[in-house]
């Protein structure tokens, strides 16, 4: 008895169509991950039965079921892992301290053997983390200069993790 009233191919087509309608670039990158295929070991029986069968690598395309899982892995990388990277970084930076020089920066002559004396501040507090978008050597400057890494709520991340689990269950065709 089938658990779903649709095939894996229909499910994959629907997912990619929906994704393409929202963001073509994203859909293309997911499609590329699928189209990369996978390596399998093929076995060729030896003509001489006393010899071992020959085993060789062959790159094959994913089945529609497997392609769905590859697509969900790609979605999970952005919808679950990326926010977790930012939250995890924020947690570890929060536990570090900011070093504030104990004197005016201009008065300090950098010394190879000695670290600049600092007072520790804000240990245990969130730090603002930024990624430079306009690099030093970039000639054309337009748009944002920097990107601020913002924490996401654990609940939101968990909702997306659960939703991907739901989709994996809805596209499980094993036992049919």
């Amino acid at each position: 008895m089938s658990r779903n009233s649709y095939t894996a191919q229909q499910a994959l087509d629907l997912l990619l169509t929906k994704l393409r309608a929202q963001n073509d670039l994203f859909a293309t990158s997911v499609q590329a991950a699928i189209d990369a295929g996978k390596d399998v070991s093929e076995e060729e029986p030896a003509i001489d039965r006393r010899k071992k069968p020959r085993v060789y690598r062959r790159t094959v395309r994913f089945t529609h079921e497997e392609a769905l899982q590859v697509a969900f892995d790609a979605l999970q990388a952005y919808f679950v892992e990326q926010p977790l990277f930012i939250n995890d970084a924020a947690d570890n930076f929060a536990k570090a301290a900011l070093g504030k020089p104990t004197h005016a920066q201009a008065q300090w002559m950098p010394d190879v053997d000695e670290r600049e004396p600092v007072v520790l501040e804000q240990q245990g507090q969130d730090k603002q983390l930024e990624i430079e978008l306009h690099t030093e050597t970039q000639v054309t400057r337009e748009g944002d200069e920097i990107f601020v890494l913002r924490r996401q709520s654990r609940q939101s991340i968990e909702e997306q993790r659960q939703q991907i689990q739901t989709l994996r269950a809805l596209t499980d065709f094993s036992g049919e």
Partner: protein
Amino acid sequence: MATLQDLENAIDTLLNHPLGVSQYQLVQRVEEKAYEAYVFGLCLRAVRELGVTPILRGNTGVPAPFVFRGAPGQIHSRGRNYGYAEFTLNGQDFEIQAGVEFKGTSGMTHELDVCIMRGSDARACRNPQSLDDPVSASLICGWECKFYAGNLDKGLGRAFVGLIADMGTNLRLSGFCSNSTHPQLLKYFQPDRRPHPHFRLTPLESSNEDIFVNQIKGELKK
């Protein structure tokens, strides 16, 4: 029995969530750098677990905000207040840097996504009287960080092996970190002196994070 409509509804819920396609549009520009920030954070954790408080510093002042380079850059650059972390362990000073270029043994410069280097060498390179790129002998640990939503590209692994080969023999620990994996690269990294494969290094796999952190702790304790 699940219907196509059930599936469509589930897909819509996923894609239209605030952390759905809009999240992709937001982070796509910085996906690789966000991953580097995460790996940098794991280095901070390793230092902390050795009983030392890492101190966040900036090239031109207090790093508030803490700025990650958007492209490979020089350690002494004052274009922005680029951040780094310093710490002292067993009487030796170290710095954790991100996106800094080093002079390889061939003289060619190479960027390391995240690294731990000798503090005295970093300070020497920032000294206004001797601004320079750090030499590869300054390096203690270095990592390549790759965020991938699909299978990793084999060429990335080959390129990093080449980079490490030009970094001399002082480099104690090197690794190739990714949230993704590649079965062939896993084998490629097995020989001695090749970078450690840290595949599936993600908060979703806490045991892989522990392996990464413990490896750093082991090297720094030596």
